[in-house]
């Protein structure tokens, strides 16, 4: 996997993750090309695109496009399912995920992604495990808040 982009129907970027080191200029160009190419696709066409030497697999979920670049010899259908699994994970975390969730909690979306994919490889495919892991980290947050409050109270 090379990169994952999430953008809206208007071409507004919601999330970008680069698994291979890419110069800033190149990133901008890719984002521009990707949004243009994917948004120009007509309905009932296949979910795969060629871009330079890469394959781009995209899928639309409501108003959001998920777009994943893979190597040519990788399995496109599997990439499609990776996107789907990611959406499922988001859905499990947010409970009926919608674009707003991702917009306003994009750092959470990144956290979930980091538990699911790491360095361009699938890390954990079990929905439960990922959810548990994220939950554990979130618990940390609450405990900390509690600690901060109690210390404040002591003062």
């Amino acid at each position, binding site marked *: 996997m090379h990169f994952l982009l999430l953008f809206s129907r208007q071409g507004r970027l919601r999330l970008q*993750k680069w698994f291979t080191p890419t110069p800033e200029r190149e990133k*901008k160009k890719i984002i521009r090309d990707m949004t243009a190419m994917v948004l120009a696709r007509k309905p009932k066409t296949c979910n795969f695109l060629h871009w*330079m030497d890469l394959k781009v697999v995209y899928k639309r979920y409501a108003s959001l496009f998920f777009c994943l670049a893979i190597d040519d010899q990788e399995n496109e*259908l599997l990439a499609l399912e990776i996107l789907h*699994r990611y959406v499922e994970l988001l859905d499990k975390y947010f409970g009926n995920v919608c674009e*707003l969730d991702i917009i*306003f909690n994009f750092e959470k979306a990144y956290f979930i992604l*980091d538990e699911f994919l790491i360095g361009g490889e699938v890390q954990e*495919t079990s929905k439960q495990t990922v959810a548990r892991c994220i939950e554990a980290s979130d618990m*940390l947050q609450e405990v900390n808040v509690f600690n901060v409050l109690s210390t404040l109270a002591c003062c």
Partner: protein
Amino acid sequence: MSDVVERTLTALPSLLSSDPSPGRPSSTSKLGTLIRGITELTSKHDEEKLIQRELVSIKEQVSSPNTTMMKELMVRAVYCEMLGYEASFSYIHAIKLAQQGTALDKRVGYLAVSLFLNESHELLLLLVNTVLKDLQSTNLIEVCMALTVVGQVFPKDMIPAILPMVEEKLNHPKEIIRRKAVLALYKFYLIAPNQVQHIHSKFRKALCDKDPGVMSASLHIYLEMKPESYKDLVVSFVTILKQVVGGKLPIDFNYHSVPAPWLQIQLLRILSLLGKNDRSTSEMMYEVLDESLRRAEMNHNITYAILFECVKTIYTIHPKAELLEKAAKCIGNFVLSPKINLKYLGLKALTYVVQQDANLALQHQMTIIECLDHADLIIKRETLELLFRITNGQNVKVIVEKLLEFLRHSKDDYRNISKGVYLPINECTYAPDNSWFIRTMNTVFLLVGDQMQPDIPNSFLRLLSEGFESAEEDQQLRLLAVDSYVSLLQEQPARLPQRFLQVISWVLGEYSSVKEGLEPATVLRLLAPLLDLRHCSSETKSWVLAAMTKLSAGPACLSVAQELAERHGGSLDTTLRQRLHELQHLASDGELLRRVLPCSDGLEPLEVDSTLSFLDGFVSEALAAGAAPYKPPHQRQEELAQEKALSVEPYGLSLPLSLSSSSIAGRLSPTVLSMSSGLSGNSTELSPKGGSALRLEGVTRVWGKEGYLAKAALKPEEAAKTEVPCPLSVLQEGGSAPRTPVVSLPAPAPGPSLQAEREKQQLASCLFMGLGSQGAAGPCLMGKAEPTRHGFRKKVKGQGSSSGARGPSGDSASSSPSPLSAQSAMDNLLCSSPLDSGSTPSPADSAPSPADSAPSPADSATSPADPDAEASSWLFSHWVLVVGVQVSRVRGGPEEEEEHVEGHSVAVYQYSLVPTRPSVHMELAGRASYQRPDGEPQSTPFSYGLSLPDFISRPLSVSTEEYGRLWLASSNDIKQNLALLSQEPDPLRATLHRLRDRLQLNVVDIIASEGIVACQLLQGPPCLMHCRLNAGCLAVWLRSSLPELPDCLLYHCQRALAQH
């Protein structure tokens, strides 16, 4: 489930303006305000202004101390960065946040770091300490976070610092930690395979982990490794796959009730790697593959993904008829599927498979024809790719026509796609006739234009110049090319792409004489306007002018040349001006032209002396004059890397982060050392067989940063060895396959739909001509195009002519033609240290860098009483001895010291050397002038390398208490991990004693796992070393009042311990 998502998401836009739902509190925060602000804006310009304002405010707040909002600020900075606005000021704060914050801050900090920085970013170095600390944390989540960030971005040079700790985590009780550690190691393997050679065994262990998640994470590395190295694991992989397919894994790993599809696919891939060209291994996996095919019957994308992988594996490994049949059926299902994604994959599978089994394409020919006219360009493109693979001599015209059509229609969208690239090669192999070939190539050049990969015009030109078998055909081809190009230039040259113009110029320059009645001057006039074209690049102009130069014979040409020179003489492009000048000159001097550019009809292979032996004289002269010896690029980089290398020792938790405290140059970290020794190991392997090594006679020895460089400098030039690739196979003619009309045309029937059907079938019969069972030769031909011709022949030098690797310099002295050479044997007898004679690259007075570190000879010529000065003094006397024996008269020397030796006499001079500043290497250089009785005065430079141990006085006897006092008094320190002599019974003692023996250090005391060592420079300050056993290596801490001393000493310690 996805439907649910979609439904929710569709309802969204209306939500955007309304109040956020209570479950999403962060939308009321500052980030929420920012996001909403951006959403409300309409123009890009406003957005930019808003974000810039935002960034300014973040910047202010972030740099003010005691900010509690760090996390929130960082999230906002990440958001701005995501939108494409640079927030580089926040990078350092992200690192700080990861370092100092609470666990939650850390999480955001790490996230920001992984999003902001890439592997090569220098700030990442600052993260190393934090990662180290978190890896040691007792909080599982902190460890997880650290491992996550390591698996994403980590500086390559710093891997050794954390490697032991990551490896330790492989034994962690929690499976999530083990899994992340495996992935982090995998990442290390990808970015720096040399440093983690030993982890393969760890991956094998992880493969047996009881947690399936850890096990599947360990599979990644096997896809990257050479399959030969893990052939023995095939049984394990087969067993695992069997279990997975059989549903033995916990239900957690199911995806849409398919058991662990990701794991399955990964295993299938590994199996295909293992079974490729290996019959016995393949036989082990037939059963499980069969089962996978059988089990994957559910109608879901993920099962198709598995099936696709299965099919690929079956066609990759040693074939088995029964499985192939099933796989073929599977492909059929894909191709015939109404789902467009599956159809695409079916075509992809066909493309993969068709090289082995062309019949399969025949079975699906009607579907392929349909796909060819598919509305979706991607499908169309994939179909063309497939067609391209089944091209043969008979169907080439039809297929190329289709390809060109695609190019014409899609060039706006897919210009950058390499489709057109396949074309010419395709045609060269199967071109039915010459005029068609030239015509098609013209179209390709026009269509693809400058998007074309540069090797295509090159291979085309080579084809033209080398030709086919018969000379007559070749001439015809050239004639046709010239004809068509002349007419193209006459029409409208302005719209021709650059590459095409270059091709045209070259062909006209070489072959316009083929066409009778075509005057060179006419061609020149045709080419001249190209120079006026505004879009014409400087490169193209050079091609044009080169062509003109070749043609410029006769007075008519001279006038054109002069005209051009007048018009373009004022051009700012110097290359252009030079070419013009050459043109003018050669046009006026026919004799010279024939000499410079001889007309050769026959194709004489160019002899290229890739060893550049004709430069040897020049090189040795330059070296003698003090030039630096050539170093191949990789060696230069290596040295550069060494200079940059930082201490990779884990910082103690109590110590403040101080990267700048120690000077770095000249010191080798253990990693770099091991890496460079690995490299030099290679180089010694290479150099003896390097028939093409640069000859560097006269260079006896070179001292560089890391010591003796002679071997490395003599490395053969690898670049010179690369063969000139021949991209095309020209000789293989298509059409050897028998004509087999595959589809029998149906009886003519009325009706337009039938008519269309019939057209399609006709097309099919055209496209698939030459395939079929007997026609299997078709795809074979294409699959095995072997390069047959080599335009360039290499002159390989004999083994003997290269000087190859050199032994110790004592040996090399004997081969060097210096007057002192006869004495080299005596050199060796007298001292084991090599004394160099002959042409050392740098005489003392012109030596650039050694000068400041070179010891300045002391004033007193009297013999120093100190026995330790021996090392430096005997060498001088010894040298004079050599000279005195060999040479009748000796005079001169370094400017400071000049000694005169009478002929046939023996004189002994002693000097003491005191280094003003220590350095890793020092060099003493001088020059001896002498005159033979009969000859000219001659002079010979000499040099002698000294190293730090020569100046270490032994012993510095101090008591432990004194040591402690000295320790506190010394200020300059460095810390490093050294290799331990671990095979000894008492490693610490053995290591310290080795240091004592080699470097004359004084071991003051050894207490349990710690030891203290001291030494003193001759007439210089002491250096103290504290050693402690730490995790299998020796953690040393050096201190001295001289800043350079610890560095140099450490270097020598490393070397002393590295030599076994």
